[in-house]
Each structure stands twice: as structure tokens, then as C-alpha cells.
């Protein structure tokens, strides 16, 4: 690796301030630190540091996303096979899906990283790693037939309006990946809802009416409880849906990785599930329509609930920051998901809106938790003063 290091060292002066390519300093720095962990030593404070850094943390999330991604690719081929009756082997299904998903991933990363690099350059900051995860989350929550230009546009919107205007990774209020989905949802609703977009190629063929490509959520919203797939199918993910969200099992594997490595908060995941179950049971008791009678456990398997709980609600930047706040935030996210799903027929996927809604409220929750801490401290001081 000496050879590579020598090349970088030779190129470095040109990219320093005042060098010929000084204006590309952040870009150069990003690539250099990608290849080599920098030789920066501590200047103040502690002399030793934990070996974990943001690149590593983000990579862990990507690893946790892999099961959902790989299964999603296979499932695209499988759903195509079910809908069109094309004969495919397991590998052919995977390759079919891979070729469908790859362009979406490429578009998401190229657009997003392009903007990140430009923004870092303008601010003269180091390039942040946040988009490594966002760039993978965006394809996973898109329908497979989403036009590429739309993915690109949504990514640009999410990164610029959702993140960079607030100051970049760590400063944003809303989860950028969900913002990208919300953008398409409100700007081009026909491309992200309905029964035609979830199976590759279905939109273009009006021929097959026998098979419906509707997701379980769509069936449930329409009150067609008899058409819901079996819990078994939903758990393993043999159902139509966004690319990465169908298999609860694959997402659970990701959840285990995140919890075990300590990267994502188990408190949020647990309380989110708790909130959904509690709301579901309450609705069961009230009753009224078939959807309200649906077992709450079905809610955990349908749509993006599992994916949102594990990968979106736990975003450390946009979620609640305090331990107590995390319990409240997770519970309310689960609760609102079920309420939106059941009571708002216009938005079958409640998870996206519930998380974005709670993103907006997370700072408020934290504010009250921190205020309680402050009040405790003030009271202690007053008690002392009285004595």
C-alpha cells in the first residue's frame, strides 16, 4: 500500500489551499480518508480515542441493510414470476431484480453524493458520511417501477432541502430518505401508490387483470381482509411492496446487527412495536370496521412498519436524543402509524408519515425531558438555600 500512499502524497500539495486544485480540497480529502484512515493525532483533551468513527458506524448500517436488499432483489423477480407466469429459476429471479434495482441505487448515490460533495466544497468542510446510508435507504423504500428521473429528483430534494439547508449531516430535522419518498408521494402519487407499481413491468401491460399487484396495505385499506396474504408470506416477504420492506425476517436480521453493534437504539424499536400493538388492541376493542378488527400483529408485518421501525425511526439525528425521550418517541411513532393506516384511507402507508411527523416533534419531546432535568437541579439548589 506504500505505492498508493506515495501517489496520494505526491498529489496532495496541488489540492491544498493555494494549490492548483485548491478548490477541490474537500473532494480530495474525502477520497484520501476513504482509502487511508488519516494520520491525525489528538491535539487537546484525551490522548487516545475509540477506534470507532462515523464511516464505520455508517458501514455497519449498510451491512444491516444487506439482507433486506438482497431479499428485495430476489423478491422482485419472484413477484414478476407470479404475476406474469414467466418461468424463472431462483438465480434468474435474483438477477432480474438485481438489474432492476441497480440503476435506482446508482442514481440515488450519484445524485446524493454529487450534492454532498458540492456542499462540502462550498462550506470548506470535510465530506460527511451520512449519505452512505441515506443513499441505500432511498432505493429500498421505492417501488421497483419508479422512474429513475423521479428517484434522482426526489434525492436532490431530500438532500438539499432536507439536509444541506440545515447545515448537513447531524443538523437535519427530517429523515432525508423518508423525505425523498414523501416528495414522490405528494408530487407524483400515481407512481408510488395503487396496485400497478409494485411489480416490475406491470404498469405497462394492461393485459393481465387476473392478477392484482396490490400490497397487503391496499387490500386492508379497501376492507378486503379475505385477500390479505398469509402471515407466513408476509413475514418471509413473498408479497409485493417497496424494494426492501417486504421481508420482516430480513429486516429482523438487520435489527439484530444494529442492536448488537449498538448502532441503533433498541429502545426506539421496542417502544415503536409496543405503541403499534397497544393501538391495535385498543382498536380491536372499539371495533367498527374490518380494518379495526384486524389483528395488531398483522400491522407489524404489513407495509413498511418493520423497515421504518428498524432503519428510519432509529435515525440518531432526527429521532429523540434522550433516553426517556426515545421511549416516548418510539411509542408515539408506532401509535400514529396504526392510526393513520386505519383512519386515513388516503394514505395507506402510515409509517412514512408517522415518522416524519414524530421527527418534527422529537426536539419538543427532548425539550421536556431536559427541562425536567433542569427543574430537578433547580429544586435541589432551592432546597439547599432554604435549609
Amino acid at each position, binding site marked *: 500500500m506504500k505505492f498508493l*500512499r506515495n501517489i496520494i502524497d505526491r498529489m496532495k500539495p496541488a489540492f491544498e489551499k493555494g494549490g492548483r486544485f485548491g478548490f477541490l480540497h474537500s473532494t480530495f480529502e474525502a477520497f484520501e480518508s476513504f482509502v487511508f*484512515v488519516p*494520520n491525525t493525532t*489528538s491535539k487537546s483533551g484525551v490522548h487516545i480515542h*475509540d477506534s470507532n468513527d462515523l464511516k464505520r458506524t455508517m458501514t455497519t448500517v449498510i451491512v444491516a441493510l444487506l439482507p433486506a436488499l438482497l431479499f428485495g432483489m430476489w423478491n422482485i423477480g419472484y413477484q414478476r414470476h407470479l404475476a406474469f407466469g414467466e418461468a424463472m429459476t431462483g438465480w434468474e429471479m435474483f438477477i432480474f431484480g438485481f438489474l432492476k434495482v441497480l440503476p435506482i441505487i446508482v442514481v440515488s448515490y450519484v445524485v446524493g453524493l454529487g450534492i454532498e460533495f458540492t456542499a462540502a466544497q462550498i462550506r470548506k468542510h470535510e465530506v460527511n458520511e451520512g449519505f452512505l446510508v441515506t443513499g441505500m435507504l432511498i432505493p429500498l423504500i421505492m417501488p421497483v417501477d419508479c422512474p429513475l428521473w423521479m428517484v434522482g429528483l426526489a434525492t436532490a430534494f431530500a438532500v438539499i432541502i432536507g439536509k444541506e439547508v440545515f447545515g448537513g*449531516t*447531524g443538523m437535519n430535522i427530517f429523515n432525508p430518505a423518508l423525505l425523498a419518498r414523501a416528495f414522490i408521494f405528494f408530487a407524483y402519487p400515481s407512481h408510488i401508490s395503487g396496485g400497478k407499481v409494485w411489480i416490475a413491468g406491470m404498469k405497462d401491460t394492461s393485459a393481465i387483470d387476473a392478477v392484482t399487484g396490490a400490497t397487503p396495505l391496499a387490500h386492508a385499506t379497501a376492507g378486503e381482509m379475505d385477500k390479505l396474504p398469509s402471515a407466513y408470506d408476509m413475514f418471509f416477504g413473498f408479497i409485493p411492496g417497496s424494494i426492501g420492506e417486504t421481508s420482516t425476517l430480513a429486516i429482523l436480521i438487520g435489527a439484530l446487527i444494529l442492536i448488537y453493534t449498538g*448502532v441503533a437504539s433498541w429502545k426506539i424499536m421496542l417502544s415503536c412495536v409496543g405503541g403499534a400493538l397497544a393501538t391495535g388492541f385498543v382498536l380491536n376493542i372499539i371495533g367498527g370496521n374490518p380494518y379495526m378488527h384486524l389483528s395488531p400483529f398483522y400491522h407489524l408485518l404489513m407495509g413498511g412498519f418493520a423497515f421504518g421501525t428498524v432503519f428510519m425511526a432509529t435515525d440518531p439525528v432526527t429521532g429523540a436524543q434522550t433516553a426517556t425521550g426515545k421511549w416516548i418517541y418510539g411509542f408515539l411513532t408506532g401509535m400514529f402509524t396504526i392510526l393513520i393506516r386505519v383512519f386515513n384511507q388516503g394514505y395507506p402507508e402510515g409509517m412514512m408519515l408517522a415518522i416524519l411527523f414524530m421527527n418534527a416533534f422529537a426536539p419538543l419531546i427532548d425539550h421536556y425531558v*431536559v427541562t425536567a432535568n433542569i427543574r430537578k437541579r433547580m429544586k*435541589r439548589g432551592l432546597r439547599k438555600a432554604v435549609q
Partner: protein
Amino acid sequence: MSKVIKIRRGLDISLKGIAEKVLSKTAKVASYAVKPVDFPHLVPKLVVREGDAVLAGAPLFVDKYNPEVRYASPVSGTVAAIVRGDKRRLLEVVVTPADEQQYLQHPVADLAACSCEQVISLMLESGVWPFLKQRPFGIVAHPADCPKAIFISGFDTAPLAPDIDYVLTGEGEAFQKGIDVLRKLCDKIYLGLNNQLAAISIFRKTKGVETNTFIGPHPAGNVGVQIYHISPLNKGEKVWTIEPQHIVSLGRLFLKGIYDVSKVIALVGSEVKKPRYYRMIAGAAVSCVEEHIIKTNHPRYVSGNVLTGANIGANGHLGFYDNLLTVIPEGDKYEFLGWLNPLRLHRYSVSRSSLSWIFPRKEYTLDTNINGGVRAFVVNGEYEKVLPMDIYPVYLLKAILASDIDKMEQLGIYEVLEEDLALCEFVCTSKIPVQQILRKGIGEIYEELKIRN
């Protein structure tokens, strides 16, 4: 009332090079220094010039705003250099020792007959006063103040820290005398101990103090954490803290009438051939232990522990309050795709994101590389796991970055010093300079209160 307090949150970092319990002698010490930078927010006023002859205990500089607080020369000899830094800031007053040590002799007072004022005036005059540190702010105590209590931590949990119990062996008489002196200043004295005290420990015989036992990982041995669990600091309150070895020096002053700051220093770290204890005088040049250092890995000399100490270089001098010298390798090397490599078994991490947790090592050799780049706050909940206080560190740091003094007070800045948040800086994924930010906040409040008074 003795209490047993269990500390759950924290982290013990196990490093290579802990000192063996053997007391050795150093080579001849070339010079000694007193460094005004060891005393936060001190504005020093020199009272000697280069070339002046001084006795051990004679003042080198005083506090410009409280000239009665003197900072004394640890040895007798000649003032060799007055080292200044940027903007002529006074960094070091260096003294070359004479062959024969001569002390400035003070009358040996009968402590029982002394009034509080007499004790204070002798302490000020002899130069031992700066032993007393005040919280909040971590500054040298103000002689006119009356503290709520004096706190002493009888053990150190920091990485590679010396065993204070061992260090004080044979100093029982002076230690008790020092405690008696402190009781003249304040009748509430708390001594924090851990549960691994040796049967012959001098702490067992110490009278006139209230002992509490703390069990748990670092920072359980930090006096700030102990204060928090016994009697947390509120706004307007002041407590004083003092190191056990300084209590011994204080006792010697009242036993023999001299300023004797000789103490036992632990020489530790992975770059030390045989880590062990050395008897030295405070402020000694570290070049006296040079022969024990492995020089192949570009060593860094840290006066103090690796979490809070100062990088003093191979030609530096020990800090005033420090009881150990840690030598670790500089990490000024690049690591190819280091962040991607899942194995990195030689690196330590509290998170399990690299696989080093599968093969935990008993002792790690860590270098000074920060292992990444500085980022904004992204990951949350990390700091709380290593801070055993009911404080929201990230909110506190953000209040400091915003210079919001009211918020800093409300979030508990008076209860912490840099050492208490040092572990937060160690575990930080975003490599945020926590201690530097905290000191900035403490400094702002200190200046603000000074103006108001």
C-alpha cells in the same frame, strides 16, 4: 456516616504498561519547572528573574489578582529560564537544582494552638496553598472563601493510574497531620475510597474524615463524581479538593516547617521498558527517566493519565498536580482502509462495530491517532453510558457552543470539570473535542462571574 455507593456507568480502559509495585530512583534530574498553565485562569506575576538563586519553597510567581497566593520553587538552585509562549504568555519557570537542597525554613507551628487564620497565612506564605483546588471552575482555592466541604479521592480509576494506597506507604504520620490541618479550614472532610483497600492502608487509620466507599468503573475515582454522589454542587456553592500526596506535603510543612513536594510518580505506558514507581520532586524534567523509554515508536510523553494529561514532550516537566507519567506511541500513521477492515484486533472500541470484541485483549496498546475525522454530533446516547451523573452532556456542550450561560448553569456545568467528561471524548464517534469545549464554557462563566462581582 459511611456509605457504599455503586457506580454503574463508566468505562475501564485496560492499557498495556501498568506500574509494578517497585519503588526506584531516577537518574539525576537536570531541571525542575513550575508551570502557570497547570492552574486554569491564573494570571501569574513573576517575582524572580533569570539567574536568581532560590531556596526550595521560595516563591517564583504569585497570582496577580491575589498576590498572597504564592507558587513556590520545588527545589533550591538558580532560575535557569523563563519560558514564554504566544502573546508572551508565561509557560514555565525553570529552576536548575543545586547539589545540596536548602529549604526556606518556616516555624514549626503547634497546630492545636493555631487559629484558622494562622494556618491559612502559613499555607499561603509557604507556597502549599495551590494544593487546594476549588470546584466549580477547577481553579486554585481563594483564601477568603469558606468552602462547603473538602473532598479527597483516595483512589484513581483512570487508565494506568497509580495505586494511591501504595504510593502513600509510610507516610501515615504526615498524611494525618495534613488532614488535621485541613480540619482547621473546614470541618467537613470527605474521603472517597474503593473496596480494594489493603489491610495495612493508611486510610484505615485516618481520623477526622468521613469515608465513603465507591464501587464501579472509571470515573468512580474522580473526585467530581464522588462529590456528585455525596453532596452535589449547587449554584453559588464551593467545595475544595486536594490530592492525597499533596496532603502529605501539607503535613510535612506542619511537621518540619519546609515546603517538601517530593512524591511517588508512576512511570507507565506501553512505551516504557519496565513500568514502575519512582520517587521524584514535583515539576521534575522527564528526561531523568529517558533511559527507561522505548524510542522506536515515536513516543508521546503525557504528564498525567491518557485521558486528561498534558503532552509535554521529551524535554518537558511534570505537571503540578500529576502523579503519573504516561508514555504511549504517537499514531501519526495512515491505515489503509482501516475503517472498512472488520478485524482491527489491536484497536479498542466500546461499540461492537469492529470485531475486536470477539477476541478481547487483556491489555491494549493504543496510540494517539484519533481514528477518524471530526464531525457534527450524529450518534447519540454514547456519552451518557460513560458519565455516572444525571447530566445531559450533549445539551451542555451545545449550550457552551452557543455561549448560552443561563443554559450552561441550568444543565449543570458547575458539577463537572474536564476530567469528568474525558471518557465522553474517548468514546465519541464524531471525535468532538469535549474537554476543550467544556473548558471554554467554564472559562466564559468564570469571566462572567468575575465581572459581576
